[in-house]
């Protein structure tokens, strides 16, 4: 009898544990590194197979049109068409080849899903770019995006110099016996052996591992160290803070004993565009097939291209259909080193463009942008600059023949953004919400906004 009880108790505990784990588990994602952008795509599990949304995967990589036709999905990417059939493995590529997926294609609510295991094989057929998928850490590299680093141990003072082919900005965790560098945004990959033993008085060993959504480099040390980033973000140097007690034995001194490079000026974006809503948070629903989140992202992308063609540097808070909280959006803006934040919304009601600033009290006398303020009033010292930005955008829209209304509104995350911040909401010129998604109208609005933003360059940068 005790044995029966023991089995029952164990089975119950196991079931409860599995249940808790299922609830606690974060949704799994694929991290995509591409020349155009780095982004994440949610994984959908069907019949034990991991799937990824085709639109989520391809939208940031180029011009995409997706058209469900019954059980068929026609995909037009940068002008080339591919066809998929719900429940079938075989698909037709732009070159009329008929390769097969490793599991069946899924068509759910007009959206196409492909097995994650087939992505690396599928992408070159559609995008004409190479793709490499690291299944364990769920990292997908499109084109030649991988950063392979080199590590060199130098002395006088003892230091480990990591060199990267492009600027990196890792999160750094320094403890007494190790330094941990976390690369969340950069496509850093192993450059050879993942674990290297040094047997040096300063550095015992290093270990590199890819993790879901990033990569981690750990230097195991025998003494405390500091971390510095130089050469415009291309080198990360881990330097001993106390001279080693014993002279170096195994590692030969480096032939090149260079002084630390002065940090090169990093290119900072002028504007951060925030396509409002995303993922399950759809915003307004204009029709069964058109949602605000989609229009916002399309307009943000179009505006990005317009700005880049005018030489204005841009970053986007989201480039795919994913959820971001208001605080995440504000933090992205506040840490982007941009000068201007623009939230992009759309509405089927009214006409033209609305430009909004935050409806919070003006700064108190003596309050500056370095004053300590509550999170929900952080925008306060920047209200004047936001007003300047709103006026410039409204003026340019008016000049382009678009009806414009300017106002202030209680709208998150504007209140918590610590740079000039405005929100725009576009509405159709006519009575149909479909106009919001037409390339012609979006182009007209994007061109007007881009001209307004470009005109702000001298005005806002001086105020920072």
């Amino acid at each position: 009898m005790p044995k029966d009880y023991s089995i029952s108790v164990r089975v119950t505990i196991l079931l409860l544990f599995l249940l808790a784990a299922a609830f606690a588990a974060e949704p799994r994602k694929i991290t995509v590194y591409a020349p155009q952008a780095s982004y994440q795509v949610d994984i959908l599990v069907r019949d034990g197979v991991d799937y990824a949304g085709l639109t989520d995967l391809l939208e940031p990589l180029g011009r995409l049109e997706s058209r469900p036709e019954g059980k068929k999905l026609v995909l037009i990417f940068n002008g080339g068409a591919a066809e998929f059939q719900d429940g079938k493995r075989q698909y037709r590529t732009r070159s009329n080849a008929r390769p097969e997926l490793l599991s069946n294609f899924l068509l759910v609510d007009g959206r196409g899903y492909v097995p994650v295991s087939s992505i690396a094989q599928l992408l070159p057929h559609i995008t004409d770019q190479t793709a490499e998928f690291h299944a364990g850490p769920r990292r997908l590299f499109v084109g030649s995006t991988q950063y392979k680093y080199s590590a060199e141990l130098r002395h006088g003072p003892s230091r480990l110099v990591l060199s990267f082919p492009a600027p990196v900005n890792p999160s750094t965790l320094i403890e007494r016996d190790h330094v941990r560098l976390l690369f969340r945004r950069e496509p850093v990959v192993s450059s050879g052996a993942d674990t290297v033993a040094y047997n040096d008085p300063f550095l015992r060993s290093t270990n590199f591992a890819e993790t879901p959504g990033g990569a981690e480099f750990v230097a195991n040390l025998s003494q405390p160290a500091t971390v510095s980033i130089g050469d415009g973000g291309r080198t990360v140097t881990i330097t001993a803070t106390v001279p080693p007690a014993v002279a170096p034995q195994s590692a030969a001194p480096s032939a090149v004993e260079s002084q630390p490079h002065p940090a090169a000026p990093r290119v900072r974006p002028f504007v951060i565009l925030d396509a409002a809503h995303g993922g399950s948070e759809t915003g307004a629903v204009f029709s069964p097939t058109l949602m605000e989140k989609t229009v916002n992202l399309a307009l943000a992308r179009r505006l990005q291209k317009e700005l880049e063609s005018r030489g204005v540097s841009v970053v986007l808070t989201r480039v795919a259909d994913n959820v971001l909280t208001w605080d995440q959006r504000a933090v992205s803006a506040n840490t982007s080193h941009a000068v201007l934040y623009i939230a992009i919304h759309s509405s089927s009601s009214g006409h033209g463009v609305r430009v909004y600033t935050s409806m919070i009290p003006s700064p108190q006398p003596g309050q500056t942008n370095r004053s300590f303020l509550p999170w929900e009033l952080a925008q306060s010292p920047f209200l004047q600059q936001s007003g300047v930005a709103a006026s410039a955008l409204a003026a340019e829209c008016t000049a382009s023949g678009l009806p414009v209304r300017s106002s202030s509104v209680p709208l998150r995350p504007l209140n918590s953004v610590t740079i000039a911040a405005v929100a725009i909401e576009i509405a159709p010129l006519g009575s149909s919400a479909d106009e919001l998604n037409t390339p012609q109208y979006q182009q007209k609005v994007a061109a007007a906004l881009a001209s307004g933003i470009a005109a702000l360059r001298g005005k806002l940068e001086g105020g920072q």
Partner: protein
Amino acid sequence: MISRKLQFIVAALVLAILAMGFYLVHLKRKAELIGAGPAPEVLTAPVSGPAQELTLYLANDSDDSLRPVTISSALPSDPGERGRLALHTLITRYLQKDSTHPLGAGADVHDVYLLDPASAVVNLNAAFAETHRSGIEIEQLTIFSMVLTLKAQLPQITRVRFLVEGKTRDTLAGHVDLSGWLDVGMVAEASK
């Protein structure tokens, strides 16, 4: 071999699960019956006395404007009830077929409380928020028209907070922030 005692325990657990399941179905049916019935009418104290001016700030979606319209109505002397009646009248206008700013069916205001002479709390019903159209301008027009209508009846208020079924709500319909107090002066300024 499973012991008799363990068999008894498992049988009792299965019976308990079945009983709870039946009770759950019973409760669900009961809730559906209650929900399917006629909506409870809002009881208001009869208002009598001389007609007074009631200014409503009516929103117009076609040109994003707020226009004051003055009507005559008997109004209670209690400030909270007076505010509630003003907003109820405004919402009734929005629910009419020819409304320039339509609200969803069933939208209404439960109560208006004055925490102190300058702070008003408006408690909306669930239908008001759940059926509201989504968009910055649309939501802003609704909230601003209510704040200005309230201010017209209760000139002493300087700030207003909106609750839905007595609870704080992040946004009205995904955009306008309802989580904090709205400054009446700033609303009036932004509405110009």
